[in-house]
């Protein structure tokens, strides 16, 4: 029981072995690599007896219950069959690859990928949970991608692998969707539950969706028409990979999926139509195309497609016997196709070519291999006494026994016979063209027999072909029976596995197929000529071209939308805003609320008028930058007056000082920017911008009005009530800033500090454009530091500092505070810079602004941390009143330390910004000719 849980993980453990053992000899590496799969195979086989008795092993542990994923494995007949195929053929491929790969190829990596793939495949077949099944399903896609692209330096390998990955990946996604719907419909992701609720599924309205999605997954993986195109291009992989992936495992995953969900999904018209018709089409088309391949592996790949189509067709027919036939053919196809691929690999390996136009008459050079290959391809063609014959007979029988197409049902056996004929034809071609048909033409190497052990896997497989063909019941009976029973999730129908059923219609069909195939082969030159009329379409090219087309189109689209125009980006944001807010605001019936308005007075009107006019002037003159700056100052002034009028003295102070610093900054910047803005907006754009701007202005104004005229209950009464008692200050705004919401302020000074640091970064190593003349081409004055200004500034500095100290100290109780004080100090220092220049200051003022910022933020934080010592929360304020003789009562509060931090940060940040900016220019200023 528990073995089952870690059984699939045994090979996974093995992925590491080759990586570490590759430093030893290649043989050792192969040997060590094979150890774990062999062990796994042994363990799996140890279950076989019980399974043949009809038992089923299941084991599960929860994993991610929220998505229905659990680690659940089951080992029933179908899983057993596939496990044996995967592990058995895998072992043979490991052996084979040891000889196939050249010294240069990193064999460790190859084995690691191979084992990884083996693990994934094993996971798929052993899964007992839908999500887990998909999990491993995708793993097979990835690991097969790695294998196919093993020779990644080759373009075909890269592209082929990518195409395989894309197609199977897409299918995998569809499968995921299908499985999720399936799980939803059933209410469980447990496979057993799903298999047991076939009726529920088939009667559900989701059924078509499930079928289509699951089949998409299966068809892409199994290279069914119209998704078949990736498989031939995956032949760029090393031949051991093809032998493994494209015969027994990867492509069979799709088939496995259909078989697995057979009880749950099959046996409806929809299923029949999709599956059998797809299978039929694939069967014929693959066979037809295979005939015209000159590449040995291309032929095999297309024949694989064809055989997969055959199995699909069988699974689609919906009869129990057909399902048995399908399972049987899965076994047979795996055996003969793996051996054929290996044989092809040997031929390629020993002769250096895979082109059947060059490869001729190899019988002479490698008779032993030729014999093996011939047996295997005879099996592929369906020659009696070989395993291929048996399942093909069953197939023909089943085509005769179905009637789903009504009166047109005869078409299916006819077409099946045609397909059989084509199979015979390409098999014959494989045999005849390669081993006979004259002498080899321009082969790179002189062919010879391969190393002894390279043939061993082929021998084993061909032996199996024969043995199964002759003693089917003995060798494959139990396996087939249990697998078929698992597929059907119930009892299996009566069938006979004997070679001889007497003369009957299927035998006749076989005979027709053989004869027809030989005739077709005989007349192949006509057909080649006929086929040559069609333009050769390389799916790889088509795929690449279409990917590139999509990429190009996407690029065009992206270049159109993300055209790098900020104006457009901002417009998009604003446009969305307009749409959103207008759609809401139209529901606002009355703008004005019930709150009585304040009566208008002359001062307000004046201020409003000044504000509006200067704002408009700023807009109108924004191209004359200095003028715009002046009008902007007016706007700022009026805004601070407005704050003052509406009872916000703190705001007025802050706004004023910030405004001045901003203007100074803008003036500084203006020097390095063009003095004027060219007129470059198209009138249409201007109109557009004007309309959106006025729309937004209207919206904001309306909302503002609507809010102001409605009464409101706020939490602020708490602040006014607790400001003095809890915060120790009478200026509620300041108490909020340093106490109630001190955390905001901490963030705010951090922002300021960061801005300064960022600006410092910006300024560093900046190469500046410095105009040697102003906007009208006038040279600058040579009076760097007007003496009147310098002298007065020196006198003003102590006064300004005093004022800032004053503002700072009173902040807690009256309008003011650390921030405004900091700005005043900064402005005072800036004025010194303006009056005296950087060099003068540098020699006199030794302040590291960066340290100021750091210590400011640090002090503010530490003042907040102080409260921890008393067991209070961060930033809990503390204040008390003290009495000193002769001075009287005074207040000390932790908020003041916090405010000091604010002050320092503000000074540091502002100065770091402005002083550095100034500093930068001084050294690089273009020298003017004084006498011009």
């Amino acid at each position, binding site marked *: 029981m528990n073995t089952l849980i870690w059984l699939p993980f045994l090979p996974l453990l093995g992925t590491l072995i080759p990586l570490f053992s590759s430093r030893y000899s290649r043989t050792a590496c192969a040997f060590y690599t094979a150890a774990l799969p062999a062990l796994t195979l042994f363990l799996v086989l140890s279950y076989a007896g019980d399974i043949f008795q009809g038992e089923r092993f299941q084991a599960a542990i929860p994993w991610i219950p929220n998505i229905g994923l659990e680690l659940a494995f089951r080992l029933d007949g179908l899983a057993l069959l596939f496990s044996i195929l995967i592990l058995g053929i895998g072992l043979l491929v490991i052996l084979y690859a040891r000889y196939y790969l050249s010294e240069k190829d990193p064999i460790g990596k190859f084995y690691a990928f191979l084992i990884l793939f083996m693990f994934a495949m094993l996971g798929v077949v052993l899964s007992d949970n839908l999500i887990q099944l998909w999990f491993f399903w995708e793993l097979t896609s990835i690991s097969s991608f790695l294998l196919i692209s093993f020779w990644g330096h080759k373009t075909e390998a890269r592209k082929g692998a990518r195409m395989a990955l894309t197609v199977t990946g897409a299918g995998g996604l569809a499968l995921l969707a299908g499985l999720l719907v399936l799980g939803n419909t059933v209410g469980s992701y447990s496979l057993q539950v799903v298999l047991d609720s076939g009726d529920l599924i088939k009667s559900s309205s989701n059924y078509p969706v499930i079928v289509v999605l699951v089949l998409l997954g299966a068809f892409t993986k199994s290279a069914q028409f119209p998704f078949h195109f990736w498989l031939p291009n995956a032949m760029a992989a090393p031949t051991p990979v093809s032998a493994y992936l494209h015969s027994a495992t990867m492509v069979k995953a799709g088939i496995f999926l259909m078989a697995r969900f057979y009880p749950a999904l099959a046996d409806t018209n929809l299923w029949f139509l999709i599956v059998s018709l797809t299978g039929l089409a694939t069967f014929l088309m693959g066979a037809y195309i295979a005939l015209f391949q000159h590449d040995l592996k291309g032929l095999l790949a297309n024949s694989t497609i064809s055989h997969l189509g055959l199995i699909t067709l069988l699974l689609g027919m919906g009869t129990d016997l057909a399902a048995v036939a399908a399972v049987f053919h899965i076994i047979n196809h795996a055996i003969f196709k793996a051996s054929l691929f290996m044989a092809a690999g040997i031929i390629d390996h020993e002769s250096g070519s895979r082109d059947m136009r060059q490869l001729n008459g190899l019988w002479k050079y490698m008779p032993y291999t030729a014999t093996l290959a011939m047996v295997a391809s005879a099996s592929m063609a369906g020659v009696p006494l070989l395993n291929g014959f048996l399942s093909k007979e069953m197939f023909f029988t089943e085509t005769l026994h179905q009637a789903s197409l009504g009166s047109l049902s005869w078409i299916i056996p006819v077409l099946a016979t045609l397909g059989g004929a084509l199979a015979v034809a390409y098999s014959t071609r494989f045999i005849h063209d390669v081993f006979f048909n004259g002498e080899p033409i321009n082969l790179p190497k002189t062919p010879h027999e391969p190393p002894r052990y390279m043939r061993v896997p082929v021998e084993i497989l061909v032996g199996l072909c024969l043995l199964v063909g002759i003693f089917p019941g003995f060798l494959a009976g139990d396996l087939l029976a249990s697998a078929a029973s698992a597929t059907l999730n119930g009892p299996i129908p009566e069938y006979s596995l004997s070679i001889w059923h007497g003369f009957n219609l299927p035998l006749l069909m076989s005979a027709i197929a053989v004869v027809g195939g030989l005739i077709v082969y005989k007349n192949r030159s006509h057909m080649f000529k006929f086929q040559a009329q069609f333009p050769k379409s390389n799916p790889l090219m088509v795929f690449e071209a279409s990917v590139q087309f999509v990429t190009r189109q996407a690029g065009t689209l992206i270049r159109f939308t993300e055209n790098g125009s900020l104006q457009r980006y901002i417009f998009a944001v604003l446009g969305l805003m307009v749409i959103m807010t207008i759609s809401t605001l139209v529901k606002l019936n009355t703008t004005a609320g019930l709150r009585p308005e304040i009566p208008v007075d002359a001062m307000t009107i004046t201020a409003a008028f000044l504000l509006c006019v200067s704002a408009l002037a700023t807009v109108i003159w924004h191209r004359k930058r200095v003028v715009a700056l*002046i009008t902007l100052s007016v706007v700022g002034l009026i805004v601070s007056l407005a704050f003052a009028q509406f009872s916000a*003295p703190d705001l007025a102070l802050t706004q004023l000082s910030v405004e*001045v610093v901003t203007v*100074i900054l803008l003036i500084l910047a203006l020097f390095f920017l063009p003095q004027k803005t060219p007129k470059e907006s198209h009138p249409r754009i201007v109109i557009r911008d004007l309309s959106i701007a006025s729309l937004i202005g209207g919206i904001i104004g309306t909302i503002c009005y609507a809010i102001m005229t409605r009464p409101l209950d706020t939490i602020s009464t708490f602040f006014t009530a607790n400001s003095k008692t809890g915060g120790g200050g009478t200026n509620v705004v300041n108490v909020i800033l340093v106490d109630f919401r001190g955390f905001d302020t901490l963030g705010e000074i951090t922002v300021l500090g960061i801005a300064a640091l960022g600006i410092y970064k910006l300024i560093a190593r900046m190469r500046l454009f410095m105009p040697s003349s102003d906007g009208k081409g006038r040279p600058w004055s040579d009076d760097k530091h007007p003496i009147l200004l310098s002298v007065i500034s020196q006198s003003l500095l102590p006064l300004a500092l005093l004022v800032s100290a004053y503002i700072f100290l009173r902040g807690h109780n009256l309008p003011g505070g650390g921030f405004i004080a900091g700005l005043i100090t900064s*402005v005072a220092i800036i004025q010194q810079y303006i009056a005296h220049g*950087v060099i003068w200051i540098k020699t006199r003022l030794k302040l590291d602004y960066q340290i100021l910022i750091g210590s400011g933020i640090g002090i503010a934080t530490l003042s907040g941390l102080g409260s921890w010592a008393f067991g209070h929360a961060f930033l809990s304020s503390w204040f008390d009143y003290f009495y000193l003789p002769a001075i009287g009562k005074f207040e000390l509060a932790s908020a003041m330390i916090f405010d000091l931090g604010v002050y320092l940060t503000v000074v540091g940040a502002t100065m770091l910004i402005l002083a550095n900016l100034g500093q930068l220019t001084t050294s690089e200023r273009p020298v003017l000719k004084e006498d011009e």
Partner: protein
Amino acid sequence: MLDITITFVAAIICIALFLNLWRLLQGPTLSDRILALDTMYINAIALILLYGISSSSALYFEAALLIAMLGFVSTAALCKYLLRGDIIE
């Protein structure tokens, strides 16, 4: 009487502000505009003080003080810009 006077004075200062604005918009030279701005600052101080009187509150004094201090800096900076381009050098 005080109320009437204040209203009257406020009106006068408002007119003065309008006149400043006129000059500011009219120009013709940048110096004119700066001068107008400077004058505006002074008138704004008066306005604030007046508002302080009318609302009998001393809270607005600092605003006036700040305008007096900062207005000068901003004027000086603007002039320095026109003279030298770079105000901190």
